[in-house]
């Protein structure tokens, strides 16, 4: 599960969808892996537009990244290749291989195994 993907996910429980506490989901017992991947600045720029920056800061601080800017890069900053490469590293090259994603609203835990998160809900939560 990549950091980018986590920013696009919230709790699968319908009653949590509207709750601000359900996003972002929180990592617990996360085991990280790093993988070198080809850099595509165009993709990073496009994803930046869709990224929820506050949630991204929450996630990255939970994972131990401390150098994320306080404000979402905009305008000329989007042409700063160093910045885009740093974001590429965090968003796409960093993966959580094992651990849990926890909803801050209903406390449901979603397991991550071998990098694949399972969002199927037990019957009582459907």
């Amino acid at each position, binding site marked *: *599960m*990549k950091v*980018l*993907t986590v920013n*696009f*996910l*919230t*709790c*699968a*429980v*319908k009653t949590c*969808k509207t709750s601000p506490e359900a*996003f972002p*989901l929180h990592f617990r017992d996360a085991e990280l892996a790093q993988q070198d*991947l*080809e850099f*595509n600045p*165009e*993709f990073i*720029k*496009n*994803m930046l537009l*869709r990224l*929820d920056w506050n949630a991204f800061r929450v996630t990255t601080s939970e994972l131990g990244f401390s150098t994320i800017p306080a404000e979402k890069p905009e305008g000329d900053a989007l042409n700063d290749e160093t910045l885009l490469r740093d974001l590429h590293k965090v968003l*796409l090259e960093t993966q959580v291989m094992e651990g849990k994603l926890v909803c801050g609203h209903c406390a449901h835990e*979603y397991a991550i195994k*071998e*990098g*694949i*998160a*399972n*969002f*199927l*809900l037990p*019957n009582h939560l*459907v």
Partner: protein
Amino acid sequence: MKEYLIRFVQQHETFRRAEIEALAALFEAQIEILEYSDDTPFCLVRIQDDATARAIVGRSILTKAVYELWGRGLTYEELHEDVRRRTSEKWAQYRNCSFRFDVDAYQGKRNQKEQRKLIEGFSYLGFSGRIQMSKFEENWCIFEEWDNVFGIAVSSSPSLSPSVSTPSTPSGANTSSAAAAAASGGAVSNIKNKPRPEQPPTHPNRLFLGRLIGGSDREAIVRYDLKKRKYISTTSMDAELALVTANLALAAPGKLFFDPFVGTGSFSVACSHFGAHALGSDIDGRSIRGKGEGGIVSNFHQYGLVHRFCDSFVSDLTNTPLRPTQLLDGIICDPPYGVREGLKVLGSRDGKGKEVIYLADGTAAHLSSSYIPPKRPYSFERMQADILAFAATMLVTNGRLSMWMPTANEDFELGVPLHPCLELVSTCIQVFNKWSRRLLTYRRIPDSAVNPTALTNYQRDMSTLEAHASANDLNMFRRKYFEGFRPTTPSTGALTPASESDTTT
């Protein structure tokens, strides 16, 4: 704008024009289709310039190449006259280039001697450069369009009718074997309406001369052939149609594409081939992980595309964890048909009033009969409606949804599901022996273009529908599949294509 000849392959006919128009949209280019028919591989278009023509066709799967149109005619006399009129001013610039001259006789046969004679007919062009079979600078091609041996006239006027691609089957081939061979790739669907002549045709119907501008991306079909892929299943979409689907949905660099029924990742791989990043989910975690083969991601490794693999996660479309906002550039899917395995979703006990339910065909009249409440088994119509609602929420403006769906033959046809936020861009049909399926492609229109009344009515009708939904839990397609279009007992073979088309490509 200049005139070009697009040389299509003669198969998957109803997908061809849609693919070219999608690619024109992708490159934000104007394309004017001057003459197109499902019955012929030759299509005349107007495009701004060579570079644009090269870009559009260079990404297409269902074409072979695009040519600058140098002339056309019903006879060689007319063709030569037209070539002189259109191009005499250009001849000097090609005088010394190395070149190659070909003859492409669709449904016809020309031996070496005949070909040489046809090519020599163009000696007035005055090309004195070296003739080379490879590493040539320029390539001209004479195109001949013959009637097939049944004497079926190829329509020479533009045809907008949605005729249907017919994978060749043995039926109707009980003529002489030579005739059957020569007819392969012909417009089988028209045979019954046309008289058959005593003799095979002696001369072609239409002629063109073109200068090669660029080839297509058809080699990708070989590269992504399922037979050579590490991880597949019986339901993996074949490489050709997966690539076409990715083109129809405008997969491209910098974009994020999602498949909610990702399976073994056929569509995701195709989207990544065109530069998009791929995200997928599936209700079955085993398909994502694979059984020792390494799962979906191993396919991305195989093709050197792992940098465009985002993630696959386990989830159900009706309870997706994706944030309900415009995050996706494209959605591609081949939803489970629910024929062989039955549809499975997490049972939603009663989403009354909270979920939008919808019509199969977008009109209120059909609602009560075709509507199905949200419980197990999941109705096919309901699933389509869920996919459309999901797409309306998740797609960015002008983002596309390309969705495969089964539709039956003859006695029954599923309606085309609609949504006020989605514009139907194209409908393509693939016909098998006992059933057919369609590829529906939609565009997410801008919020400002959504008719507010239509949206309000839609939501109201859906709520009404949900409140009054009958207890009919049968999946219509499934029922028809077992009752309607199967004279014999079900066998698993009926869900696979009757045979690969062996048409002249």
